[in-house]
């Protein structure tokens, strides 16, 4: 285990509630400063690269671009890291090494390049089977950082039951970043994999962009220093944890991911961490207290390897001073908006697919308004390719007649990407 890389927890909230108030909101910022000493991480890292080699990959230059990207990913791995390359079709095939994981060095890199060069597109798509093989390969490396990157260009051919079971079996076992190349894959499917396995998801519409994207993914994985970080949330008896969502860098609802964390506490998995900062929105419903009472409505603790490395208090204090209880915390307001933005986009795009122009226009209009207000320029730009914006301030939009499939999928895939609170919002 690498040394604790300087974790901290910061709580941002308005702790004052009006008389009878029950709902406590807080933004919990978890930050890791990274290791104090420079140089590469000393954590044990294992990476499995999964390349879709189904028949559909043969078209549009996809197979050769995927092979180039996989080779670049192998080159970007640090010496000493454990790795394997899996070819995915209707089943999963370990194409390098012959068994288990190889250790990165000049020779194994060259051998992996050769194996990747021999890949041919042929067969079906069975994402669940691919993940299960990745899990088997990574299971020998429980103590360190276990990471997979998955590339696919098509929809999963497995039954919902088989896929669901495989995904559930892999939950908590390793982190998986997912990339969809082209426009024939299903956003919902890859989002589910990335979400369950605490990784990222993105679209790479043009095959030629794959190499840069794979390099970036491997670099991010190499920057991870601590695996299996857990947020333990204590809440008082007779209270309910309404929700816990990651809200930066993406919206991810963790409410249902609760595992037992001891008396009155639940453990939520945060995945692997490098030097980074993420924000979480916590909402607790507490029994109302008398004016003048103060209570700890939540106690956030960061747990690594069973040890608490940082804590933060979420407080509630009842007051009859309206000036205090009606103050809106700018961070809570901002992230509430960002979470709504993500769902407005997803609902709007679904309505558009279903031919419900009215709902699609309303939801995407709402998204334009929220993105503008919060300064989420990346999302604003993506929305601008799907709707014609008449007035961003009111969210008055018209659906575009002809929308590029890649633009629509980009908006859907990136709908959960959030931005920090702007300076002028507090």
């Amino acid at each position, binding site marked *: 285990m690498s040394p604790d890389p300087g974790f901290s927890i910061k709580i941002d909230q308005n702790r004052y509630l009006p008389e009878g108030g029950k709902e406590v909101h807080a933004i919990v910022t978890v930050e890791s400063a990274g290791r104090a000493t420079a140089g590469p991480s000393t954590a044990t890292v294992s990476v499995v690269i999964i390349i879709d080699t189904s028949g559909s990959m043969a078209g549009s230059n996809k197979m050769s671009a995927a092979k180039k990207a996989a080779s670049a990913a192998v080159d970007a791995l640090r010496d000493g890291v454990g790795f394997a390359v899996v070819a995915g079709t209707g089943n999963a095939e370990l194409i390098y090494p012959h068994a288990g994981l190889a250790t990165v060095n000049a020779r194994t890199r060259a051998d992996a390049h050769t194996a990747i060069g021999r890949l041919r597109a042929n067969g079906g798509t069975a994402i669940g089977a691919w993940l299960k093989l990745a899990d088997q390969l990574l299971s020998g490396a429980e103590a360190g950082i276990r990471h997979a990157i998955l590339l696919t260009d098509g929809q999963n051919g497995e039954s919902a039951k088989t896929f669901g079971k495989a995904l559930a079996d892999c939950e908590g076992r390793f982190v998986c970043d997912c990339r969809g190349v082209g426009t024939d894959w299903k956003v919902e499917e890859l989002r589910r994999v990335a979400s369950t396995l605490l990784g990222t998801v993105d679209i790479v519409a043009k095959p030629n962009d794959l190499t840069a994207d794979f390099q970036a993914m491997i670099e991010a994985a190499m920057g991870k220093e601590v695996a299996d970080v857990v947020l333990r949330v204590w809440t008082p008896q007779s209270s309910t944890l309404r929700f816990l969502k990651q809200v930066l860098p993406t919206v991810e609802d963790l409410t249902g991911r609760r595992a037992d964390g001891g008396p009155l506490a639940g453990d939520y998995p945060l995945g692997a961490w490098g030097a980074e900062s993420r924000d979480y929105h916590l909402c607790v419903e507490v029994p109302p207290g008398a*004016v003048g*009472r*103060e209570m700890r409505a939540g106690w956030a603790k960061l747990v690594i390897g069973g040890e608490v490395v940082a804590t933060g208090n979420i407080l509630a204090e009842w007051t009859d001073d309206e000036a205090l209880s009606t103050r809106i915390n700018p961070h809570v307001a901002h992230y509430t908006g960002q979470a709504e933005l993500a769902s407005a986009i997803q609902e709007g795009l679904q309505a558009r697919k279903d031919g419900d122009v009215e709902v699609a226009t309303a939801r995407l209009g709402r998204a334009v308004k929220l993105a503008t207000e919060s300064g989420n320029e990346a999302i604003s730009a993506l929305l601008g390719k799907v709707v014609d914006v008449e007035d961003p301030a009111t969210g008055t939009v018209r659906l575009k007649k002809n929308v590029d499939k890649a633009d629509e999928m980009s908006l859907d895939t990136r709908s959960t990407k959030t931005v920090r609170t702007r300076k002028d919002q507090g």
Partner: protein
Amino acid sequence: MEDDPGTCPSCGLAVLPEDGFCEACGHALTDAGIAVVVAAGACIGCGAVTIDADGYCEQCGIRQPSGRDHVERELAGVSGVSDKGLRHSKNEDAMAFAVLCLPAERQAIAAVVCDGVSTSPHPEDASQAAADAGLRVLQKELESGADPEPASREALTQAAAAVAALAGSAHDAPACTYVSALVLDGALTLAWVGDSRAYWLPGQGTGIRLTQDDSWAGQMVTLGVLTEAEAQAHRNAHMLVGWLGADADAVDPHVATFTPDAPGLVVVCSDGLWNYLPEPSSITAALPPTDDPLHLARSLVQTALDAGGHDNITVVVIPFTPEDTPA
């Protein structure tokens, strides 16, 4: 079960379901007649005995009363009472005072009252740090021969530095008000920033307020825009324009000296008192017929509690006798 008379767990006497406390030993019982053990350190919210080091119950999360909720202190020549009031969860006021024995057998009485700014983080730490630092520096300055005004100014400045040092950043800056009163050689020296006040209440005649608030209301009155009553009635009235804290502009201490010519009382207080008794005459009217400073301070605090106790209340009382008047 409800009709079963229980027994007191402490002394074994039979108790009735409607009993709140055991008639024999006073042990607390629940209203169902089933006795609960209220152990030392039991939670005021749920009765659990698991109070953690931060003062929160590990079961229901309720914050437990702290040692500062009600404080009384009595010295020969100065006494003070500080109370959290009825509407706040903790006492964010702080007071510090001492009788100082100076060279050449001179004696001084110094008192500092600070009121933590509720909207800042850890206001109770700010007020305590400021009061402690203020009194310490005042004593040191006077002992080394400084005059009352420069000593008071220096004490306030260093108190401000002590509060600023508590801040993690400008966005995480504990803050408080500050007022000091120093009685030495027949004169009274005040130094303040914020809206905690000092009053002079002569034994006979009309009292006066000795400090001007660093508040929106105070500013409006000083500028002559509003009358005192109009300004205090405004919703911005209590908005501070001067305070101690890392997020404050350069601290600009107000310092003034007042030389009473008759015996009377110096009252130093936080806004928890003067919200209810703003005029010197209203404070005088609330004083009980006694010369005991602790009794006087206690009584003023009680008046504020009876009036609603909306804020933390701190009152320090210093009886004053002019030097040329025989006591």
